[in-house]
């Protein structure tokens, strides 16, 4: 079939089963947008900023497990999208981002809206392409989807000059992807797996360290089975929230900088770390030389470069965690479940000593209460996204997650402005579920223009703004480590968030009591239109417990005890 490059893009997206594209048009990508106008195979959602389009595609990918797609123009369109690419790269989210480029004949001439896009995206994508001939386009798009979604997932950027989108060439999408240099290793070495199971059987205080790779691999239910069959307690990273249900008796909690005391102590006392799809991030390990100091390490990861990068693995297993866990399940009966009773008791004692909690000791609402309350009212039904800051950590700590893909947040890059557009993508992927974004008074302003997208496309995301009139997370560090010099973090000057939402056609609530909050949430869920619920919360609440930066997991700053 002889068609134009622009038509090829439409055909390829259709053949890849894409039903939603997020984007923003402009000169260099106009040929493709012209074809979008003519087709009815997928919906296009016009975000109001390219960064938001990419975050929306991330939210869509995270919630659906499919590849997210965003489309943008050259120059400023592309540079606006870079934060989204970097975010997806850090959190291993499968995306295909297609950008327009100036015509081939103008490349290198400092043409209008020309920027070396592949030069910029090289270090924040899994792979990228500059298409120089329409005849390569089918192969490149097919490779892009394959690379984005296989192995360790990630964003792939395809930059297409305007003349290439006009060029006519043969379109044949039936050729299988042939990449001699890219063959992800998905099956774990059976001998290593057997040795790992033996190590588990021999250990006295083993601990599962569950990471986001389990969610990528759609392996949460297999992991639940393995945890239950072996009786080994588990901690989760921030990215793994929802792998185990919040009420699973084997789940100790989240570990790391803002992890629970029990989770961090368990990691400090374990004699065998069983890392599944986790990458030993510095927010998790604290001081490396003290991390799980007396433990042997089993590390299952699809990316060989993750293994022994920071912590040496005694049992390295390269493979897809789903395959590996399935193999482990087959031989896991070697492990005596009752053996870890006293270890579990030790951990429970840690938890009794310093449980994860907060004090309701102020006139103002506590942000943690709000999060718990949403959990009580919406629980399982809601998909939860967040922005970045204190509210994000409280959400990870206090929301009762019960399933994988329920929690969507920017972990690796920590991108303020992620939450709202991501929630739009989540809502587009899972319209039957309520989509809630916990955000801060700082973060929400970084992509609040998305109110327009939400209204236009009827994506009724509920944004709960935990308003502390501060860039709270930074303020917390200033309070604790900079002698209370709150440099440029006071957000006393603010917009009227209710009017802001209303100005775009959304609804807004300002609440400061529990009753008001319940009523607002109930109303927002019923109204089915995008909402801002601004909750006035205690200004100086800190996220606790906390491992100070560079400290050891067992040296936590703890919540002050209060007499009941």
């Amino acid at each position: 079939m002889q068609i134009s490059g622009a038509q090829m893009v439409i055909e390829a997206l259709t053949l890849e089963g894409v039903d939603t594209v997020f984007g923003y048009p402009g000169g260099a990508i106009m040929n493709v947008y012209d074809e979008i106008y003519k087709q009815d195979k997928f919906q296009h959602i016009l975000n109001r900023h390219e960064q938001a389009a990419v975050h929306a595609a991330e939210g869509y990918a995270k919630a659906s497990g499919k590849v997210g797609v965003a489309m943008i123009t050259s120059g400023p369109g592309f540079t606006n999208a870079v934060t989204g690419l970097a975010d997806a790269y850090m959190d291993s989210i499968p995306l295909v981002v297609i950008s327009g480029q100036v015509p081939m004949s103008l490349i290198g001439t400092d043409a209008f809206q020309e920027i070396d896009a592949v030069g910029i995206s090289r270090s924040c994508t899994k792979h990228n392409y500059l298409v120089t001939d329409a005849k390569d386009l089918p192969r490149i798009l097919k490779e892009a989807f394959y690379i984005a979604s296989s192995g360790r997932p990630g964003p792939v950027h395809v930059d297409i000059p305007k003349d290439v989108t006009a060029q006519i060439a043969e379109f044949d999408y039936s050729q299988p992807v042939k990449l001699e240099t890219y063959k992800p290793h998905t099956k774990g070495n059976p001998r290593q797996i057997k040795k790992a199971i033996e190590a588990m059987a021999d250990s006295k205080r083993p601990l599962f360290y569950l990471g986001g790779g389990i969610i990528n691999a759609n392996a949460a239910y297999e992991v639940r089975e393995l945890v239950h069959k072996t009786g080994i307690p588990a901690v989760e990273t921030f990215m793994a929230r929802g792998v185990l249900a919040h009420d699973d008796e084997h789940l100790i909690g989240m570990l790391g900088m803002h992890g629970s005391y029990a989770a961090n102590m368990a990691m400090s006392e374990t004699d065998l770390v069983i890392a599944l799809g986790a990458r030993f991030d510095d927010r998790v390990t604290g001081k490396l030389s003290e991390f799980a100091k007396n433990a042997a390490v089993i590390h299952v990861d699809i990316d060989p470069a993750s293994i022994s990068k920071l912590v040496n693995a005694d049992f390295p297993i390269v493979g897809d965690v789903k395959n590996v866990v399935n193999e482990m399940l087959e031989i896991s009966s070697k492990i005596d479940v009752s053996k870890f009773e006293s270890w579990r008791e030790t951990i429970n004692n840690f938890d009794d000593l310093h449980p994860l909690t907060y004090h309701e000791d102020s006139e103002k609402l506590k942000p943690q209460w709000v999060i718990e309350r949403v959990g009580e009212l919406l629980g399982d039904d809601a998909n939860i996204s967040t922005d970045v800051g204190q509210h994000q950590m409280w959400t990870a700590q206090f929301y009762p997650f019960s399933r994988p893909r329920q929690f969507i947040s920017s972990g690796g890059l920590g991108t303020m402005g992620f939450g709202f557009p991501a929630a739009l993508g989540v809502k587009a992927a899972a319209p039957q579920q309520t989509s809630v974004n916990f955000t801060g008074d700082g973060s929400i302003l970084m992509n609040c223009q998305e109110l327009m997208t939400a209204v236009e496309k009827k994506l009724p995301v509920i944004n709960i703004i935990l308003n502390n009139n501060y860039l709270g997370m930074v303020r917390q560090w200033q309070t604790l480590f900079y002698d209370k010099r709150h440099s440029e973090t006071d957000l006393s000057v603010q917009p009227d968030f209710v009017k802001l939402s209303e100005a775009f056609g959304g609804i807004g609530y300002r609440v400061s009591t529990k009753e008001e909050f319940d009523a607002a949430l109930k109303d927002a869920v019923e109204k089915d239109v995008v909402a801002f619920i601004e909750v006035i919360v205690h200004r100086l609440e800190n996220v606790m417990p906390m491992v100070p930066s560079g400290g050891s997991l067992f040296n936590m700053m703890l919540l002050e005890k209060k007499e009941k």
Partner: protein
Amino acid sequence: MTENSERRVISVIVVNEASVLSRITDLFSGRGYNITSLTVAPIPDSKYSRLTIATSGSVRVIEQITKQLHKLIPVLRVYEHADLVEKEMAMVKFPITENLSDINTLCEAYNGKIVNVGENVIIAMVADEPKRVENFLKVIKRYNPKEIVRSGAVALER
């Protein structure tokens, strides 16, 4: 670099395509690895090129470098050489007024010779192990070299 930094030579076989070299050098600069020397040339009768990179780092860093290189999509193979034959070429320009027979003798000791003679300068070349080339360059200092160019190392596993 960090603890026990060691010199290492890594060969990388890559698909011969646009921007593949920048993918490699970006990886080194982006992750803070250093490149002592780098050579590239196409492998005859194939769609691949071979890069030889001399670098240095601790065992952990070198392991990360090879893994990260391998992660790049157009990279076919990465060899971290343990037992290798390594050669490098150097060319040096001398004033014609220097003692040419001394220079020639020296070159011969390092697998080289005088390759060009002009009105005012001569050009000599040597090809030897990088360490020996280093040595050669030290020795010839007294003959007032005007310009020195080194090719960077190439290597093959024994």
